[in-house]
């Protein structure tokens, strides 16, 4: 019974608690309002039009969408929409290639930075630069780099001694490779940064003890460092997975989702539906399905993460 624990000086403490609660409420209010502002109307509106065949091409306001009521047809269509499923698959493909690649490269680099060596600070700063380049600008950069007469082919020609003129962005599989290279270039530094912070956080004395006990480098890494870095690794992977799932800027500027639909991810597909096909009722259905799926996934992740979760949601 909480009332009992507050027994001594109850009145005063209660006042104070009330005042504190009030102040806390005021302090969190702006953030709450902003979240409500961006959540309530969009959610209700999308829920409404997702049940209709509404498109701005019909010439009526969205509030009149009821006259085009089609129940769950949009959702049914989505279930059999090949283009949606292949866009989703492509998004997942980019994810399962890029995120592990970024992780391994970042981890490898981070292990090299654990102790001091000459030039460490400067190298560190330079290696972090890609993640600060505006992604859209990175898109234009890689668009130029991957032209058939561009520097990538020029480098490859120099290295191989042959004249290489690969049309990266015109070939469906190579365009995918180019897009992934750009993503890995830009976001490996992030993995490097986070993982290095985690590695440095592992206690030095434990490592020393292990060394004294005769553990070699690999044993120390696997038995002491990795387990201690579990949370940090999960966080690093989670951030990149979440952000990679939304991949749009760099990719859209490099290929526009092309050639054909070869690099069309879900964000690009939705963008095309919004701006070209104007099939907005359908987009709303997609949005809600994504929202629902992500919320369920988040719920599962949080309940699974046990200790970590209590920390995060506290």
């Amino acid at each position: 019974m909480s009332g009992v624990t507050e027994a001594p000086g109850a009145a005063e403490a209660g006042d104070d608690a009330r005042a504190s609660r009030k102040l806390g409420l005021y302090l969190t209010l702006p953030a709450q309002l902003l979240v409500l502002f961006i959540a309530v109307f969009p959610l209700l509106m999308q829920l409404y039009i997702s049940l209709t065949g509404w498109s701005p091409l019909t010439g009526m306001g969205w509030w009149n969408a009821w006259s085009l009521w089609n129940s769950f047809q949009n959702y049914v269509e989505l279930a059999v929409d090949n283009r949606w499923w292949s866009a989703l698959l492509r998004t997942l493909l980019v994810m399962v290639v890029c995120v592990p690649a970024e992780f391994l490269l970042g981890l490898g680099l981070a292990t090299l930075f654990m102790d001091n060596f000459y030039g460490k600070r400067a190298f560190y700063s330079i290696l972090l630069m890609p993640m600060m380049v505006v992604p859209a600008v990175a898109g234009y950069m890689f668009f130029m780099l991957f032209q058939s007469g561009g520097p990538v082919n020029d480098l490859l020609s120099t290295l191989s001694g042959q004249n290489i003129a690969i049309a990266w962005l015109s070939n469906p599989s190579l365009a995918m490779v180019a897009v992934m290279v750009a993503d890995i270039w830009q976001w490996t530094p992030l993995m490097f940064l986070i993982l290095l912070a985690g590695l440095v956080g592992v206690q030095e004395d434990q490592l020393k003890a292990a060394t004294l006990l005769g553990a070699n480098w690999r044993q120390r890494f696997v038995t002491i460092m990795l387990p201690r870095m579990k949370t940090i690794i999960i966080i690093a992977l989670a951030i990149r997975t979440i952000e990679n799932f939304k991949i749009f800027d760099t990719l859209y500027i490099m290929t526009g989702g092309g050639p054909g639909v070869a690099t069309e991810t879900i964000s690009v597909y939705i963008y095309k539906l919004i701006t070209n096909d104007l099939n907005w009722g359908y987009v709303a259905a997609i949005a809600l399905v994504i929202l629902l799926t992500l919320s369920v996934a988040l719920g599962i992740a949080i309940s699974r993460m046990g200790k970590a979760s209590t920390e995060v949601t506290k």
Partner: protein
Amino acid sequence: MTTQNRISRRQLLATGSKGALVAAAVGIAPQFIRPGRAFAQDALAAGMIGGPAGFDGAERYQYGPDTPEGRAIEALRSLKGAGKAPERIVLGLSDGSIGQLTQPFPAGAPSIKELFEQETGITLDIVGVPNGQEFTKTMQDISTNGGQFDIYAVEWNRLGDLAETGGIIKMDDFVAAHRPEWDDPERGYVNGAQGVSLLNQYRGSTYGVSLDGDFQTWNYRTDLFGAAAEQKAFADKYGYELKPPRTWKELDEISSFFFRPDQGLFGSTDLRNQGWGYTNWYQRYTSMASPNQFLFADDGKPLINSEQGLAATEEYIKSLAYKSPDAISWSWPEQYGNFGSGGAAMTCAFSNLPKFLDNPGNSGSMVSGKVGSMLPPGREIGGDLVRRTVLWLNLSASISSQSKHPEAAYLLLQWLGSSRIYSWMTANPGGYFDPFQLANFSDPLVRQTYHDYHMDVVRESVARTVPSINYPGATAFHNALDENLVASLTGAKSAAQAMADTESEWLKIAGRVGEEKLLEAIKTNKAAWPTVVDRLS
């Protein structure tokens, strides 16, 4: 920022660009650069009520009271007098075209914007829209009730889609009241009333005013075709004379002949990318029958999943052999850049390519004086030669339903889109609006910037131009075709599969649009297809 500021910033820009403009003008029209303005007309000619002055030949663009331009200006003045005119008209326009309204041309002239403001006292507020985003931004304004524009300028193909949204108004009453004379047999649209119906109307009502002439035209390099060594080598190899190709077969052979990637030279760089490439497929497809191979039968059945569709698609894929390896990702900026740097023997582009690239004022261009124009290649059918090209993109201006002053907006469009002002505007090298009216083709100033050799070919190409899809669902129809064609180019689908998939998607779209609407629109569209067929000999 206030309007005042905005205007002065633009004026500043215009001044800043004068150096460039003079350079361009020197190249294009040396006779306009004369000491002082002693020879120039500074005042209106007798009987004229308005129009530009201050340069030689200005009287061609001046107008009396009984012209479409004159009626528009007088009606605006009387609206103004009655206090019913707006202070400003907001015109959304794609970025690349604004220069033609804001940069003075030729030397000594005012800009179109200045002239309009001076004659009517109404501010012309031109709002730039990124090239390629015209439809997106217009739909955004309509669907969100943004009300940012009085006038939208959108690709002509989307007129049906836009009209169906109710976001643009019918201009029929204004047309009846102010008589734009678009079908004037001397000065008006090609094919008279038929042409007006094609460019400005949807289901019998006027929804747009054409401000462009995007008839895709073909260009070649006269220096390459004229070189004796090339001619000999070509004749030895193929057994006929090297000259601009008349058939697709000749085009493919000549292109293969000139394909020398190690020297940075490609055969023909007509586009193959998403969004633009399918216009070149159109040309190969529609010339498959005499006089036309249609896209839809009269009963609305798609005709593309056929022997003809398959053959056109296969040719279209095969032609990649003599293009840049990047062809599938090349858009017009790459195409123009490459042609300007001497990287192609032939290409098919908007009719403004010679204006920009065969232009001594463009010091970046290495092909000035080396460009020729030719009719589209065609196909031999029963002793005839069917040459077809395509009308595609072509900006049209429409009036927003949210505009508070639709009549004034209409009058501005009547003024801008009538042959005198339009000839003057299209001659201006500062933007993308191209000639399309009879008066434009014969105008000396237009012929100066677009070149004589080109203008005649354009006029003849117009007579051989098929309209692309302009009925409701146009965007969706074209996207489906486009995506399947690109898939066939990348090898993701076979040509047959691409045509079959396009057909099934078209049937779906047709179902959404509604049969009645579609059949009527297809019929109107077909009536505008050309009948000209050349003799082979």
